[in-house]
């Protein structure tokens, strides 16, 4: 069973950032403040949602349970920032990086979620990479900017863009990951 975790401090943000994920994944949603060990134990994969640009309350919460999670996790935007902060031995600060609107993305490393080039919708003011492997970039005049990530040894994926807007197939490919084979 897939578990979608909402990072939204404001309930009014959930139709925008969480409901589309729940529709694609056909699953239940838990808010990050109420997710329990039982919820995690029942899940075979987890998607952590994005939230409004002005919302950073999720960064003050305890996400330490992510350190021990053995199942695949996909962090989207705010969810990706959560992964960056929670995974052990890789503490990395988030840097200011305002990107709003569609951008062209180029996949640079083979991965099960995306291939080739595609347009994606960005809505963030912070980003980072740490020691996560970079799977895809946005090519800018200043050079390539990482936007899609995978942990070197675990099935932890991050997108700094919102695949639910223009790239539902990325979410579908995550849902189709064969967890038995992992």
């Amino acid at each position: 069973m897939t578990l979608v975790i909402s990072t939204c401090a404001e309930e009014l943000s959930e139709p925008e950032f969480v409901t589309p994920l729940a529709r694609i994944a056909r699953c239940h949603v838990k808010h990050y403040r109420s997710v329990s060990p039982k919820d995690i134990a029942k899940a075979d994969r987890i998607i952590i949602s994005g939230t409004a640009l002005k919302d950073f309350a999720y960064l003050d919460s305890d996400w330490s349970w992510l350190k021990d999670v053995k199942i695949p996790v996909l962090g989207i935007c705010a969810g990706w920032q959560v992964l960056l902060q929670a995974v052990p031995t890789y503490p990395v600060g988030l840097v200011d990086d305002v990107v709003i609107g569609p951008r062209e993305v180029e996949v640079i490393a083979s991965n099960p979620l995306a291939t080739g080039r595609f347009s994606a919708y960005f809505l963030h003011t912070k980003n980072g990479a740490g020691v996560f492997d970079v799977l895809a970039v946005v090519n800018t005049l200043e050079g390539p900017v990482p936007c899609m990530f995978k942990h070197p040894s675990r099935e932890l994926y991050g997108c700094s863009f919102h695949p639910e807007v223009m790239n539902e197939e990325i979410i579908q490919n995550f849902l189709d990951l064969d967890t038995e084979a992992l």
Partner: protein
Amino acid sequence: MKLGVLYSGGKDSTLALLKAKEFHKIACLITLVSANKESYMFQTPNVHMTELQAEAMGLPLVSVATEGEKELELIDLKRAIAEAVSKHRIEGIVTGAVRSTYQASRIQRICHELGLWCFNPLWLMDQVALLDEIVKAGIVAIISGVFAEPLDKSFLGKVIDKAMAGRLAAAAETHGINPAGEGGEIETTVLHAPGFKKSIIVKKSYASFDGSSGVYHIHEAELK
């Protein structure tokens, strides 16, 4: 939180307002009156009705005129939102955006620059489900513009009820249009909705149709 609603007077911004009202205080409506009928950002048919709609809801209206020139109209939008912040102390904006990344990203950028929250409660909604929710919510919206085949003069001025929602869904099946008009296929004007203390009664109107597009012009209306 005190919020301002970017309000065109159509069905989507009205439904977005109703959803926002469940959680926050709506402090004002914000309308851009565009001189350009081809504006990428703003609805034009019957946008003057927002004055009556605001009165019906008992909400103040911040109305700003714009020439509607691409990108330049964003300066007017920012000015309107800044005026709403100044006059009504709003902390965030609500929009009825459903699919347009062009509109949504520009509004998000303005909100970011002004330090405001941005809420898009209809974002990525299935359009047939959206029409269904509008009807079920008790929003009485008429079709005030048609801009795609097979939508013709017979649609103009008609209320979007269950039967009309079915007609639009059927047109989506046969002609690939967006049934709720997210691609600009239709524009709507709301005559009544929950929260309206009075309904808008159209006194004088006429429909114009040139074979491929048409508008239902409301010339005189009153609250009753």
